[in-house]
């Protein structure tokens, strides 16, 4: 246990403890605790799950069970610009699969992976409720609608340029 805790920075550890305290260390609030922790860390590493289990006085297996059950929780860090392609039905019948394939090819990534430079990650999601704009993809909070596979290159370039300009 000690060895694992050393891997986490002290501030991170304290912040997670503070989150658990905010929810009164109540096991019934586990999902809210995980949401808050993921908001702060970007993902839920094994160490964080162990710490949460300790604070809430529940087995780590239970925390892991919940984390792995819900699609919203992730155990791998997302990219700086997380890309999500909607595979809801409306997007599907308007060609979302081709958009997803184009992103895979452009970034050389599989779904659920992050590029080695940490810039992009690729996930699928089910319906953002923008079916009128189908097919839709999101980069962070920004929605790109009425996409064609040819648009994918430009979207990726937009963020690469942004990164180059900031550097």
């Amino acid at each position, binding site marked *: 246990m000690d060895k694992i805790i050393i891997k986490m920075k002290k501030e991170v550890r304290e912040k997670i403890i503070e989150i658990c305290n905010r929810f009164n260390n*109540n*096991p*019934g*609030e*586990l*999902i*809210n605790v*995980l*949401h808050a922790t993921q908001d702060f860390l970007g993902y839920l590493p094994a160490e964080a799950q162990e710490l949460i289990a300790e604070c809430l006085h529940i087995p780590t297996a239970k925390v892991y*069970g*919940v984390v792995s*059950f*819900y*699609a*919203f*929780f992730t155990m791998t860090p997302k990219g700086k610009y997380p890309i999500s392609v909607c*595979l*809801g*039905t*409306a*997007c*599907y*019948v*308007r060609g979302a699969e081709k958009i997803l394939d184009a992103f895979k090819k452009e970034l050389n990534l599989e779904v659920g992976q992050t590029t080695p430079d940490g810039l992009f990650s690729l996930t699928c*999601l*089910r*319906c*953002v*409720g*923008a*079916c*009128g*704009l*189908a097919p839709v993809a999101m980069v962070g909070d920004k929605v790109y609608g009425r996409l064609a596979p040819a648009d994918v290159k430009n979207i990726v370039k937009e963020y690469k340029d942004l990164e180059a300009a900031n550097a």
Partner: protein
Amino acid sequence: MRLKVESILAEKNLANDVQVIGTGCFGFCEKGPIVKILPDNTFYVQVKPENVEEIINEHIIKGRKVERLLYVDPKTQQHKEDSKHMGFYKKQMRIALRNCGFINPENIDEYIARDGYKALASVLERNDPEGTIEDIKKSGLRGRGGAGFPTGMKWSLCRQNSADQKYMICNADEGDPGAFMDRSILEGDPHTVIEAMAIGGFCIGATKGLIYIRAEYPLAIHRLQVAIAQAREIGLLGPDILGSGFDFDIELRYGAGAFVCGEETALIHSMEGLRGEPTFKPPFPAVQGYLKKPSNVNNVETFANIPVIINKGWEWFSSIGTEKSKGTKVFALAGQINNVGLIEVPMGITLREIIFEIGGGIKGGKKFKAVQTGGPSGGCLTEKFLDTPIDYENLVAAGSMMGSGGMIVMDETSCMVSVAKFYLDFTVEESCGKCSPCRIGNKRMNEILYKITKGNGTMEDLDELRNLAHVIKDTALCGLGQTSPNPVLSTIDNFWDEYVAHVVDKKCPAGQCKALKQYVIDPDKCKGCTACARNCPVNAISGTVKNPHEIDQKACIKCGTCYEKCKFNAISII
């Protein structure tokens, strides 16, 4: 756009005369962004920021409408300035969506001005919870989440159970892919849900309300938080509401992306911080729900109907719709259709009216093939069902279901085997894994569908699909498992020939299944330009300059590059 409108109005000293309202969805997503100007109800479509100045100069200052930006009726080519006359709105009837697009959802005063919280006040004043439940029963309102359980009955079951604490729960975990009804109601009119929950709480004897909402809907969460805070501030939530002695308050609980959490027992487990796995009913939530206390779970759209039923009376509500399905239903119309958007129609309307009148027909003049209702629990309906009046019973009899309201229209280019595969992909991913018929059965069915779309299916596979589907239907634990084979069964029943074409002829009639496509070169049209052979990634094309080329079908990976590169239309897909 909004900033632009405000800045131009300020420039022209009109900021005090013209009020700019950021409102909830008008429903007509296909033509967005939309700007509506009151009091004359002028409806401008597909407005761009650069059009704003023109609209203000012409319409607001000079009183002339900008014809160019009005909606054009595709049939008559006439401009329709008032939304009431548009084909999209003509057949609609808005009860649950009554305020969406009319009020600023972040201002409680605007809701109150449209009879908001009047129903709550009258229910508290009447002080006869059983009488109110009786009215809801008589109105004929049924659960809008999909299964259609009578709402009044649900309330009275929960009322009968005494406990020190009961819970009124709102299911806002809209997980059906391709549906966005609840999101629009929560974003466009959050107070209606709050008011209805308080009414329901009073009727069943609950003092606590919980809204279980998807974390994927940040705007809806924000608007609910604002609305709850405003209601508390003026005493419409909290202790002793309107001096009646009734206490009620609402908290939000966040979902984390699991489709099965739409099932009420799974939803309750998820709110308790557990994995969202369903449990066997009974005990029903009305007996043992959240934290083992009696609880009542209703869907967002169901709640949105309640205040109207109380204000206008159950007689009025039960006069709308069919014999067994009363009122209206909100549908999210999407897919290969001209007018994508959110619609609310009276029960008993036909699919033909929805698709061809409200929806404006199939995109690109293609032929209608099927409409999918009920999401992963529903089925695909064909042309022969187009004139069936829509209600809970008719849709089930046709092999689909009402569902939460997703309605996906497909044209002739959609392969029905692939559609069934798409829904099963979803079910396999979302199955909670608790019972084996759903966990393993759906996986096996999915494998067979993959085999068929790859061209390796046999007639025995089709029998096996049917067999598995019936076993899952009969033996799965929860409602989601029991309905998960519907997409397969309904496509087998309605599109048997298409399945046979995949299995026997190894052809995909819709041309969607990649593995079953064959690219061939027409020797008469081929000029021998070598473009296809040079671009083929696997060197499957042979031939010499100025002589017809040929594709080696065994080597071909069906990528379609040759088809795109050929300038002489010599390559066709069969």
